[in-house]
């Protein structure tokens, strides 16, 4: 009779209380408060009905958005099918393989607004003969909460920033995160990752394209 429905911010404060706690029980006895409590619990439990690929793509883009909020310069792109390189039909035409890839790279640059240098294709081949002699960069993946992992790498001497590239297993671009000052960064499980260290327009080091382990 004397129950007063709690505001949402008051209700969520009850979440960590044991179910037997008097305040928790009082809230559970009220259908409205209980409905909201159940909503909060459903939120915290996550939604396992979303396809894994969609969730991974969303998490990557939200990671990029978070990096923007926290100061890193990030470019978030809509998932786009990578131009298919070196299709058999191309081989029969006069366009050479390298020229085709270069055109594809130019198209990607035009579409995404990403400035050179640095191709955006995970194969690393779009750069053609201009691949700089950069030092290899080793990536280390460690488990994190949820379906994601943390990727770390050793600092590169002279590097002013790092670019983290994320791709799906099908080589669709998930996100390109520029301006990271260093590791760690969060990546979705199963994503293909590459990190590039640069100083201005000069690339100092780059990792190979490495798959974050599936959880």
């Amino acid at each position: 009779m004397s129950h007063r429905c709690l505001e949402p911010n008051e209700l969520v404060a009850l979440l960590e209380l044991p179910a037997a706690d008097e305040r928790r029980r009082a809230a559970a006895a009220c259908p409205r408060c209980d409905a909201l409590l159940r909503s909060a619990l459903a939120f915290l439990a996550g939604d396992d009905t979303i396809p894994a690929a969609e969730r991974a793509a969303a998490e990557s883009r939200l990671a990029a958005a978070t990096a923007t909020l926290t100061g890193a310069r990030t470019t978030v792109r809509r998932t786009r099918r990578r131009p298919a390189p070196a299709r058999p039909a191309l081989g029969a035409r006069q366009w050479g393989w390298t020229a085709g890839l270069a055109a594809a790279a130019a198209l990607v640059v035009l579409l995404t607004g990403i400035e050179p240098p640095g191709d955006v294709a995970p194969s690393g081949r779009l750069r053609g003969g201009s691949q700089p002699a950069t030092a290899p960069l080793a990536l280390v993946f460690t488990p994190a909460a949820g379906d994601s992992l943390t990727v770390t790498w050793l600092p590169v001497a002279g590097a002013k920033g790092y670019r983290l590239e994320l791709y799906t297993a099908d080589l669709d671009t998930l996100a390109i995160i520029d301006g990271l000052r260093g590791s760690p960064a969060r990546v979705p499980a199963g994503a293909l990752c590459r990190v590039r260290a640069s100083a201005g327009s000069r690339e100092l080091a780059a990792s190979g394209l490495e798959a974050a382990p599936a959880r």
Partner: protein
Amino acid sequence: MSEAAGLARADDAELVAAIRGGGAAAEAAAGELFGRYHGRVYGWCRRYRHDPEQALDLAQDVLLAAWRSLATWEGKAPFGGWLFVITRHACLRAARSRPPAGEDESLLEELPDPRPDPAAVYEDEQERAALLALVRDHLDPQEQRAVWLRCGERMPVDEITRVLGLDTASGARGLLQTARRKLRAARSRRDPNRDAARGAEDAAPGSEGST
């Protein structure tokens, strides 16, 4: 490496403290903290937006709002609960910006939102109280929960089924239909002239009906 492992082991409150401490560590801590909830925020937004792109936009709005108001988190509620409140608010606003979809739920839609709302100022307080009393007096607790989630939270029917853990074939839809039937009957008994008048209004050309 050790820093990353340390962040992964830190609880939410420790990460918030690291963010408030500023510096480069704050960026990493923010990435870790929000990263723990990206999937949950997106999942919730997806319930209210069937298009993944729209859901993603909504989730980004949530993150922005959370980031801006991070200073207001006092630790009284778990961080995840606090973030749920922000997510819920954003999703409700998004849901209210669109007309309700689906079947005729006019009677349920008449139920007022009990939270402060400028629109509520224009509502008939007596009618509000009467409708809420109808819900309390004539619906069983599970029906009331479903009604609250549908009307107060604007939650899609399928999601209500999941949140309430309903395992009947009709799920929340059946529950809401029963609730609607009960409320309609109860209101007819309470005020038989009102529904007759409303029927006449509804039948009139250009009528918007009344609440």
